[in-house]
């Protein structure tokens, strides 16, 4: 859409980041800002577990040692937060959702996933957005164990969606037949959250009927 309005005298302060294309309305940061709604849960790895269940053939549950024994991958991804920052080339080590889903075996009717977290946070995603190398459970960030304020010991990472979908302190992924809003989604944020379409809020969703409204 053409925007005839402009702010007199306003101009870009820093040169355009080279080699990276920013989604609309985003700016690049070198920091790793923290966004969460409440206190940071501290979860001892001795007490940690992660489950993959719901509409699956074989529900799975791993403790910390079992989960760390699964095949790991190195990943370099760009991340985009709904509060307007983007960070390019973040490096992670983690377990691909493809690995986990292959062990559990999604049922035919499974189409959506609800991520449940320590501390009670939830977020919803389509199952198709977690497969085909598009998502992983991150354990190391920048070569070091993921810090609690960034979602450690383990966080879901789905880089192609706004970062609130990359649930911190992940505890369980539940496969569902129908979409249902999670924590921020109930507060008016987008059901899908595509940064390239700037789907920040529910009003920005393409098909609000399909989003269950």
């Amino acid at each position, binding site marked *: 859409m053409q*925007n005839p*309005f*402009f*702010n*007199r*005298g*306003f*101009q*870009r*302060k*820093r040169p355009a980041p080279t080699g990276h294309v920013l989604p*609309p*309305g985003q*700016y690049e*940061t070198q*920091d*790793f*800002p*923290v*966004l*969460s*709604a*409440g*206190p*940071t*849960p*501290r979860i001892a790895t001795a007490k940690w577990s992660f489950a993959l269940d719901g509409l699956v053939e074989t529900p799975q549950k791993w403790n910390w040692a079992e989960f760390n024994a699964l095949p790991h991958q190195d990943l370099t991804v760009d991340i985009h937060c709904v*509060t*307007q*920052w983007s960070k390019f080339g973040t490096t992670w080590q983690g377990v691909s959702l493809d690995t986990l889903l292959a062990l559990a075996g999604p049922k035919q009717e499974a189409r959506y996933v609800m991520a449940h977290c320590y*501390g*009670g946070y939830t977020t919803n995603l389509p199952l198709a957005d977690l497969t085909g190398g598009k998502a992983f459970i991150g354990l190391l960030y920048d070569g070091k164990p993921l810090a609690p*304020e960034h979602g450690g010991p383990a966080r879901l990472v789905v880089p192609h969606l706004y970062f609130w979908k990359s649930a911190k302190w992940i505890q369980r992924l539940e496969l569902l037949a129908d979409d249902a809003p999670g*924590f*921020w989604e*109930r*507060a*008016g944020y987008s059901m899908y959250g595509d940064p390239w379409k700037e789907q920040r*809020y529910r*009003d*920005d969703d393409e098909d609000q009927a399909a989003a269950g409204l």
Partner: protein
Amino acid sequence: MSALQWQLATVTALRPETPRVKTFVLHLPYWTPHRAGQHYTVRLTAPDGYQAQRSYSVASPPEQTSQIELTVELIEEGEVSGYLFEGVTVGDQLEVRGPIGGYFVWEATPLAGPLLLVAGGSGVVPLMAMLRHRHRSGIHNATVLLYSVRTPDDVIFYEELARMAAADATFTLLLTYTRHSPANWSGYQRRIDAAMLAEAVKLAGSSPQCFICGPTSLVETAASSLQAQGIPPVSIRTERFGPSGT
């Protein structure tokens, strides 16, 4: 019109709050009542089409109709705060959308329980909306604002807060100065810590609803320390303003 569509607001007044903080009074063609604690997004557009967006909390209470007040701190080298601070005067227009956010909000109801507000720097802005909303509602739930600033020059809304505290025995203002304090100051002179939070909790009374806003490090410290003092996580709501870890 939907609350989340862009609208062109007009700056009707400007108020310096501190040497580094200004309040912008914006008249909105499509004002909708916000909840205290919510924010708006401001979008700046350059003549060449470049755009930048940032979030700013509403400082005014929902009782103030047809306009909102945004209180902005000038950030060193800040792209948006720098322009707002230097480049915007009364009569100018700004593109905004909102109100946004459904969690870091507080409603003044006759049954409202004790309230503990913890702020660092410009993190006081959404908490001020809550205090103004409470004041306008005329309710008297026990309320404490623990507010960390660097120097006496940096206290945003000082006079209004002092007036509120003087006129209302159920509201306590606790200031802490981390760099230097006023002459004859007998209050806190350090960063917010567990002991300070324990005193604030005691003043607020049993199991307060807590709102914490400011730089990430302050929010992390305050939230985990309140939790360690037995306040359930569901009663602690946080908002982190900046990437800076100061």
